C-alpha cells in the first residue's frame, strides 16, 4: 500500500517476485493499476487518501473475529495497559479525541496517558503548541510518565484497556464503510482481510510495504501507525517475513535521517535542543520524562559523546560539554516554513545540495518565488538543474512574476563530484551502510560535499578567528581537525576519518569503539552518531565488507553493516515467544539458549544478550537493566509496542480516518472532516481548493495524485538529462480513465491541462483502463495521475507537476500532503503568460477561494488558521 515497488524499487522487487515464485501471495492496494499491480496476484483499487479507513477496516475485521495473535499481543504490546478515565475517543467526539483546543488547533494530551501515570515534565497545558512536539522526543521516544507504574489487565478485558479501546475506536470501520470511504468494493476488501489474517500466525507472516504514498499526507504519520498496529495485532513485527517496510527513495535518505540534515534532530535521532532546554540536564530530563526502561534511557551517554565529537577537548563537564553552544529551536523550522520565510524576506542565503526543490518540492512556485527573494543561493549538483536556473527559465518568467533584471539573488552553481568520484557510505532503506570506494578523481571544479563542507568550515572559522563573541565560540571550538590528503590549502578531507569519528573513540585509550554499549556520559568517549557506533569496530570499516552472498548465511551479516550493531531485523526478540522459544520452527530467528544462558539465533539478537526470558528487573533499575524478559521493544520507555500511543503523536493516540485537506467528499465517518491538527499555511501565495463542508469544491471535482516512473528519478535532475532515460519516458502525461476522458472530452495523446488553485499544468493525455472511477459515498469519483519528474531543463521537459500542490502538512513530522489534492482536467493546452494568471484567478473566483479557504481545520468549530504575509 502506498508503494509502487516494482516501478520505484525494481531491484528490491526481485525479492517480492522471488517470494511469489515460492508461493507467496502478493496484493497491491493502490489508486491505480501499476506495474506492481500487473505482477501482483491481486490488485485492489482505493481512493487516494483513504488508506487509514482501509486499514482500520482490516483492524476491525481482526478484532471482531478474534483473529489477532493473542499471545503476542498480550506479551509484547501495550494492549493490556489501561488508559486514563478522562480519555475520550473519536467515537465519543465525532472525530476528535479528548483535549482538543480549536483555538490553537492542537491537543492537550494528558488524558491520553496510561492510568496511573503523570503528565510529562512541567507540562501544565499552557505550553505553546510547538514546544511539546514529538520532534523533540528524540531517541528515547516520547516520555510516558512512569509507564512501569501503569495499570494493566493481562486478560485484555478491562473496558479502558488499550485493546478494548482499539476495538471501540475501529468499530465503525465496517466493510460497508470501507467501501463508502475508499471506493473499494466490499468483496475485494474482505478478500484482503482474509488473506492478511490467514497468513499471519505462528507459521506464517505477512509483510507490509509502504513508501511516500503513505507519508506525504496530512495524516501521514498515522497511516504508518495504522499499518504498525495491524502488524502488531497479527504478530508480524520482529519476525522473519513480517515487518513494515518503508521503501525510501534516495540513495542515502535513510542516512540523512540517521545523521540528519534535519532541523529538529541531531545525529542518532537525538532531539535538537529547544528553547525550553536551559542546560544539558533539562534536555536529558525531557528525553527521559517518566520512561526509564530500555536503551533510550542512556541518552546522556549518546549526547555527551556527540558533544565530545563536536567540540573535542573544549567539551568539558564544567561547560556541560558545550551543550550551550548548540542553537535552540522553537517550533517549525521545516523546509516549507523556511521557504515562506524567504518570501517574507527573513532568509538571506540558501544552500541547495543535491536536491531540486524548484521541481521536487510541493508548490514549486512557492519554492521559486522564495529563491527569487534571497541574497544568495548556492546550488551544488551534477547537472544544471531547474533550481539553479529559476531566474532564467522558471514558469514565472513567462507570467512576469519573476523578471531576471529585477531579481537580485546571486547564484553560485557548483559542480559536484559523482558517487564514483568520492568515497563514503550510503545508508540504504533497510539501515545498511555500504561504503563506496573512489573510482576516479573528480575533474575540473567537481568536488565532494565533504570537501565543500570542510573548506567552508575552514574559511568561516578563519574569518571568525580571534573573535571573543560568545556566538562565535562554537565555531572556534569546533573539532575540525579531520585527516586530509594532499598538499596546500585545498586538501581533500578523509571520509574514512569522518566515519571513524562517527563510530567513536574511547578517549582514554584512543581505540575505536566496538558498539554503542560502550558509550559513556562522563566525557571519556566520543561518538558522532551513537546508532552508527560499531561501523568501524575493531578498526575495520565494516560498511566496506563485501563478502559474496553466496558464501554466507541467509542474513548476509558480512555484507555492509546495518545499524544498530549490524542487526538485520529490529525487535527480533519478538520472533520468540515470551519463554524465549521460536514461535515456530518455520519462523525461527532468535531464541534463548538455556545452556549458554544467552540469546542466540540467525540474526544478532535485539535484546540484552544475557537477560533471560522470565527476568523481572529489580526496583529502581534504569535503562537496559530495567527491561523485563519479555520487553521485546527495547527502545520503548515501557518495553512494549504501542497499539495506542499515549504520547508522542500530536494528532491522536490512534489513527483515525480524516479526509485529505483537499477532498471531493465529506468525511463519511465523522463530522470532523480532515486532520484537526494539520499544519495549514493560510497565505495568499498558498491557496487551498475548497473541501466539504466548504462550498466550491465542485470546481475541482477530481482526485489528483502524482508519483514516480521507473524511468526517471524524482525531480529529474539525474534522469531527464540522460539520453537513455529520457527517451524511455519523453513527455509529461496525465493518466485518465476512459470514463473521465469521455466526461471531459479528452483524447488519447491530445493535450490537456490539470488545474488547481495554485497552477495549471499541461500534459499529454493517456487514456488507460489502468485507472478506474470509484464509487465513493454514493457518487462516482475520478482520479487522475501524473508523474512528477518533469521540469524546464534537460533533454525532455514539461510543466512542473508539483506546482499543482499547495503546502499543508502533517503536524507530527511536517511532511507535506503531496499525494492527494483535488483538481480539474480540461482539454487542450493551458493558457500561457498572463492568460495563465487570468485562468487561475478565474478558477479561484469560481470556487470562492480566499486566504481562509481550507483553514477551518476543525469542522466542528469555526476557527480559521490563516497567516498574513508581512
Amino acid at each position, binding site marked *: 500500500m502506498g508503494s509502487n515497488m516494482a516501478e520505484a524499487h525494481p531491484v528490491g522487487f526481485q525479492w517480492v517476485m522471488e517470494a511469489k515464485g515460492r508461493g507467496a501471495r502478493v496484493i497491491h492496494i493502490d489508486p491505480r493499476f501499476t506495474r506492481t499491480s500487473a505482477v501482483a496476484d491481486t490488485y485492489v483499487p482505493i481512493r487516494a487518501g483513504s488508506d487509514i479507513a482501509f486499514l482500520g477496516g482490516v483492524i476491525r475485521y481482526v478484532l471482531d473475529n478474534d483473529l489477532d495473535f493473542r499471545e503476542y499481543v498480550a506479551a509484547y504490546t501495550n494492549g493490556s495497559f489501561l488508559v486514563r478515565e478522562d480519555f475520550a475517543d473519536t467515537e465519543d467526539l465525532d472525530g476528535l479525541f479528548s483535549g482538543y483546543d480549536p483555538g490553537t488547533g492542537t491537543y492537550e494530551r494528558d488524558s491520553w496517558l496510561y492510568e496511573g501515570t503523570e503528565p510529562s515534565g512541567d507540562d501544565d497545558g499552557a505550553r505553546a503548541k510547538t514546544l511539546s512536539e514529538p520532534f523533540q522526543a528524540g531517541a528515547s521516544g516520547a516520555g510516558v510518565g512512569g509507564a512501569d507504574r501503569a495499570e494493566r489487565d493481562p486478560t485484555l478485558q478491562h473496558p479502558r484497556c488499550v485493546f478494548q479501546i482499539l476495538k471501540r475506536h475501529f468499530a465503525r470501520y465496517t466493510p460497508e464503510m470501507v467501501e463508502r470511504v475508499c471506493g473499494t468494493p466490499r468483496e475485494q476488501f474482505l478478500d484482503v482481510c482474509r488473506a492478511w489474517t490467514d497468513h499471519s500466525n505462528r507459521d506464517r507472516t505477512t509483510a507490509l510495504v509502504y513508501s511516500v504514498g503513505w507519508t506525504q499526507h496530512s495524516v501521514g504519520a498515522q497511516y504508518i501507525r495504522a499499518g504498525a498496529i495491524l502488524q502488531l495485532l497479527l504478530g508480524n513485527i520482529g519476525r522473519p517475513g513480517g515487518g513494515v517496510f518503508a521503501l525510501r527513495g534516495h540513495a542515502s535518505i535513510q542516512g540523512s535521517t540517521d545523521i540528519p*540534515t534535519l532541523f529538529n534532530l541531531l545525529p542518532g535521532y537525538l532531539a535538537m535542543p529547544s528553547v525550553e532546554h536551559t542546560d544539558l540536564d533539562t534536555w536529558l530530563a525531557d528525553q527521559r520524562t517518566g520512561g526509564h526502561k530500555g536503551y533510550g534511557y542512556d541518552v546522556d551517554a549518546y549526547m555527551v559523546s556527540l558533544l565530545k565529537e563536536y567540540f573535542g577537548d573544549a567539551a568539558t563537564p564544567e561547560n556541560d560539554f558545550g551543550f550551550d553552544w548548540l542553537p535552540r529551536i522553537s517550533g517549525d523550522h521545516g523546509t516549507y516554513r523556511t521557504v515562506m520565510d524567504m518570501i517574507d524576506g527573513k532568509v538571506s542565503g540558501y*544552500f541547495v*545540495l543535491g536536491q531540486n526543490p524548484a521541481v521536487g518540492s510541493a508548490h514549486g512556485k512557492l519554492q521559486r518565488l522564495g529563491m527569487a527573494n534571497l541574497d544568495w543561493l548556492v546550488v551544488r549538483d551534477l547537472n544544471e538543474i531547474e533550481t539553479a536556473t529559476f531566474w532564467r527559465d522558471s514558469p514565472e518568467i513567462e507570467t512576469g512574476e519573476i523578471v531576471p533584471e529585477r531579481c537580485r539573488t546571486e547564484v553560485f552553481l557548483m559542480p559536484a563530484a559523482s558517487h564514483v568520484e568520492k568515497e563514503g557510505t550510503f545508508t540504504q532503506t533497510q539501515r545498511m551502510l555500504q561504503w563506496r570506494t573512489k573510482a576516479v578523481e573528480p575533474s575540473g571544479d567537481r568536488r565532494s560535499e565533504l570537501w565543500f563542507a570542510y573548506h567552508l568550515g575552514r574559511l568561516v572559522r578563519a574569518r571568525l578567528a580571534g573573535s571573543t563573541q560568545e556566538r562565535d565560540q562554537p565555531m572556534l571550538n569546533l573539532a575540525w581537525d579531520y585527516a586530509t590528503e594532499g598538499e596546500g590549502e585545498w586538501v581533500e578531507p578523509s*571520509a574514512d576519518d569522518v566515519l571513524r569519528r562517527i563510530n567513536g573513540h574511547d578517549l582514554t585509550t584512543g581505540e575505536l569503539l566496538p558498539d554503542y554499549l560502550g558509550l559513556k556520559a562522563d566525557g571519556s568517549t566520543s561518538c558522532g552518531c551513537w546508532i552508527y557506533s560499531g561501523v568501524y569496530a575493531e578498526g575495520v570499516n565494516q560498511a*566496506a565488507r563485501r563478502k559474496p552472498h553466496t558464501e554466507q548465511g541467509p542474513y548476509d551479516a558480512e555484507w555492509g553493516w546495518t545499524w544498530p550493531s549490524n542487526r538485520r531485523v529490529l525487535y527480533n526478540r519478538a520472533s520468540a515467544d515470551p519463554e524465549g522459544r521460536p514461535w515456530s520452527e518455520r519462523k525461527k530467528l532468535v531464541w534463548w539458549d538455556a545452556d549458554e544462558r544467552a540469546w542466540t539465533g540467525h540474526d544478532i539478537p535485539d535484546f540484552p544478550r544475557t537477560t533471560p526470558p522470565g527476568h523481572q528487573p529489580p526496583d529502581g533499575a534504569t535503562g537496559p537493566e530495567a527491561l523485563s524478559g519479555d520487553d521485546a521493544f527495547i527502545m520503548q520507555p515501557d518495553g512494549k509496542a504501542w497499539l495506542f500511543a499515549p504520547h508522542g503523536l500530536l494528532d491522536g493516540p490512534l489513527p483515525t480516518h480524516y479526509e485529505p485537506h483537499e477532498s471531493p467528499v465529506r468525511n463519511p465517518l465523522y463530522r470532523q472532516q480532515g486532520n484537526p491538527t494539520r499544519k495549514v499555511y493560510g497565505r495568499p501565495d498558498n491557496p487551498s481548493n475548497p473541501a466539504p463542508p466548504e462550498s466550491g469544491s465542485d470546481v475541482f471535482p477530481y482526485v489528483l495524485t502524482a508519483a514516480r516512473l521507473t524511468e526517471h528519478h524524482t525531480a529529474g535532475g539525474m534522469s531527464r538529462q*540522460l539520453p537513455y532515460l529520457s527517451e524511455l519516458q519523453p513527455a509529461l502525461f496525465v493518466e485518465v480513465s476512459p470514463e473521465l476522458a469521455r466526461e471531459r472530452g479528452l483524447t488519447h495523446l491530445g493535450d490537456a491541462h490539470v488545474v488547481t488553485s495554485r497552477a495549471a499544468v499541461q500534459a499529454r493525455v493517456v487514456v488507460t483502463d489502468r485507472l478506474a472511477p470509484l464509487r465513493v459515498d454514493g457518487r462516482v469519483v475520478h482520479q487522475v495521475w501524473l508523474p512528477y519528474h518533469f521540469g524546464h531543463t534537460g533533454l525532455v521537459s514539461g510543466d512542473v507537476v508539483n506546482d499543482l500542490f499547495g503546502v499543508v502538512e502533517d503536524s507530527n513530522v511536517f511532511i507535506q500532503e503531496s499525494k492527494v489534492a483535488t483538481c480539474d482536467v480540461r482539454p487542450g493546452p493551458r493558457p500561457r503568460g498572463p492568460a495563465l494568471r487570468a485562468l487561475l484567478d478565474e478558477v479561484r473566483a469560481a470556487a470562492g477561494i480566499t486566504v481562509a479557504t481550507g483553514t477551518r481545520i476543525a469542522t466542528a468549530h469555526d476557527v480559521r488558521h490563516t497567516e498574513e504575509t508581512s
Partner: protein
Amino acid sequence: MRTWLGSIGASTPLGSWPVYRQLTGTDRLGRGAAAQSPQHVGLRPRTASADRVAGSVCPYCAVGCAQKVYVRDEQVVQIEGDPDSPISRGRLCPKGSASLQLVTGPQRLDKVRYRAPYATEWTELDLHEAMEMIADRVVAARERGWQERDAQGRRLNRTVGLAALGGATLDNEENYLLKKLFTAMGAIQIENQARI
C-alpha cells in the same frame, strides 16, 4: 587440390580471404568460422582491460544496489551490478544501468557558474574564489539573521539568515560535516528530502 590450397598459410592475403577459407576449411557455406573477421576472433569485453574495479553503490533510490565501477586510463568505462551483493545480486534498474551516462555524460557540470544579481546570463568563476565569496556571504548572513534570545528572554543562540536543503543524495560523512558545521554556526534551517 585441397592439399595444395591448404599449403597457403592463413597469414597470407589469400589465406585470410574468406572464400579461400570456405573452400579449405570447415565452413563451406561461409556462414560462420570462415566469415569471421580477425577483429572478432577472441573478442574480449572492455571490462577485461580495466586497470581497476571500484566497489560502489547505485546513487539513485534507496535499495542500495552494489555496483562495480571499471576504470581504464583514469576514465570510467563501465558501471554494472555487483553479483556478490545480497541486496541486488548484480541487478540494476534502468536508472542504475544508466549510471555510466550519469557519471560520464556531457550534461555534467565541470566549472563553477555564477549569476551576479540582476544578471541574465551565467559567468564563470574560479572555484576557490567562489568558496571565499560564499564564506563571506555566510558570515554576513549569519550575522544578519542572528537571534540571541526570544521575546521571553530565553536563549536561542541561533541564526535564521541561513538555510540549507539537501542530504538524501549525499554520503553520511558529508551530512555529518554539514550538520556539524551548520549547527556550530547556529543555523537551524537545515533540511533534506526526508521531510519531503
